[in-house]
């Protein structure tokens, strides 16, 4: 399903670690300014899909188009520079650096000091909590604060596509709601294209426009979020709610 209007198109990806492929002919297209939920049980290949898109895993077959350009098999730093920001599971805050240094790091791939400092100003306006803690080592932040920091850091590069891996993992329910509202806001206010991997299918589908369901490395369903959420059989078999 090559979709020329898509911000991100994954076509027929085969990828894995060593022998048996984890992803088997996976395709997904994300239209600009939408949230696409990537759902499925543990081991379905959700994280591997994000890692393949951002270049951490080299696909054996298939194409990955970002704004029409094929980035498959490029090194991660080049894919990041092509506009893909990957927020990995377990967050990836650099704990030895301060909050501000973590944020600045996100903009280093952009040219021009004024562009970078403007991005920093935007981040503090959007997330005043980070501004209050900017000189603090990032290792001292709570889990929820770290999640906000890594998303803010990803935004510093002005990405075309944001890949979020389990942003609600390990967070208190109140923080889950806050993070999901934040993701929704990124789409509504900034027009960002988001690929959202979630174990928590119910809260992901609540904010997503469409979704795919992975099972054992294959796409078993791809539809509008409302349709997926209403499919009782699908929910019982794959989504667990």
């Amino acid at each position, binding site marked *: 399903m090559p979709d020329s209007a898509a911000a991100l198109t994954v076509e027929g990806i085969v990828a894995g670690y060593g022998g048996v492929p984890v992803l088997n002919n996976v395709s997904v297209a994300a239209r600009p300014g939408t949230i696409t939920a990537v759902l499925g049980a543990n081991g379905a290949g959700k994280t591997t899909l994000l890692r393949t898109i951002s270049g951490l895993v080299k696909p054996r077959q298939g194409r990955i188009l970002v704004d029409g350009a094929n980035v498959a098999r490029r090194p991660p730093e080049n894919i990041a520079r092509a506009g893909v920001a990957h927020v*990995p599971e377990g967050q990836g805050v650099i704990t030895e*650096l301060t909050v501000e240094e973590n944020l600045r790091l996100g903009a280093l791939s952009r040219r021009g000091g004024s562009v970078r400092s403007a991005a920093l100003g935007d981040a503090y306006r959007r997330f005043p909590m980070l501004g209050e803690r900017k000189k603090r080592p990032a290792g001292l932040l709570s889990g929820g604060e770290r999640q906000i920091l890594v998303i803010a*850091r990803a935004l510093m590069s002005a990405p075309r596509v944001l890949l979020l891996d389990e942003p609600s993992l390990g967070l208190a329910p109140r923080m889950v709601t806050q993070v999901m509202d934040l993701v929704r806001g990124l789409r509504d206010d900034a027009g960002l294209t988001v690929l959202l991997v979630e174990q928590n299918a119910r809260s992901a589908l609540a904010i997503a426009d469409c979704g795919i369901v992975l099972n054992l490395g294959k796409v078993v369903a791809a539809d509008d979020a409302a349709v997926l959420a209403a499919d009782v059989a699908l929910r019982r078999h794959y989504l667990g709610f």
Partner: protein
Amino acid sequence: MQEFVEFTLGGIAVGMIYAAIALSLVLVWRGTRVLNYSQGGMAMFTTYVAWVVIRDTGDYWLGFFAALAAGLALGAFLESTAVRPTMGKAPLNSVIVTIGLLILLEGAAGIIYGGQYRSFPAAFSIRGLKIGSFGLGISEADLFTAAAVLAAALALFLVFEYTSIGLRLRATAFSPGVSRLLGIRIGRVLTLGWALAGLFGALAGVLVTPSTFLYPNSMDAIFVLGFTAAVIGGLDSPVGAVIGGVLLGVLLSYAGGYLGSNLVLVYGLAALVLVLMIRPSGLFSGAATRRV
């Protein structure tokens, strides 16, 4: 009293040289988790560059800066050609490659320049300074050594803390995977780290060689003591490297002065073993785990 002052100040001066070697090892270790066994060989080789330039032009400072430039270039060259392919492989690969580079550099120096001992000039007088009739145990050349290493270390600190290059260097050292996802070209950053290490090695070589003579193995003992200083400071910590260098220099100066100077290298090794036994992560390292 006079002896004590002499030993202390003299120890600090020598310690600054250990500190420079230790800094070069820390720069590489932080970025790549490689212990660069060829660091002494690199320092020796770049000192020969200075020696040739000084011999041919008669200008000490031309030779001094030629060595620093050669250190930068040699570090970048070795990283991008020999060390890069060992990244992501078993740690032993990089150990063998850097030991191989050491043998290569020492062999090449012997072939190109010969094995004989060459005298190497100092920038300033090596006559001991005195206040009245009170000898300080250090010379103008020692003062220059201390000032040069301190200035270079301070410059390094400012670059690390306050520039975007420094932020890249630190981020890559702490978390190369995250750095790549943020679009940082870590290959270039690692090359830069090795180049800076080559620069500090060259600085140490040029500063220490007036008192050791220049020959293909001339930096071997200095490397061992620089490594000891780096371990004392904790291989991760640039500040620790400088403090470790000075600490080791002063301790060895006391040991050599009061106990006899024949066994200084042995005392250095004893200090290394002691630190590894009591506090293997070093005195200043924040990290608790170590792979080697």
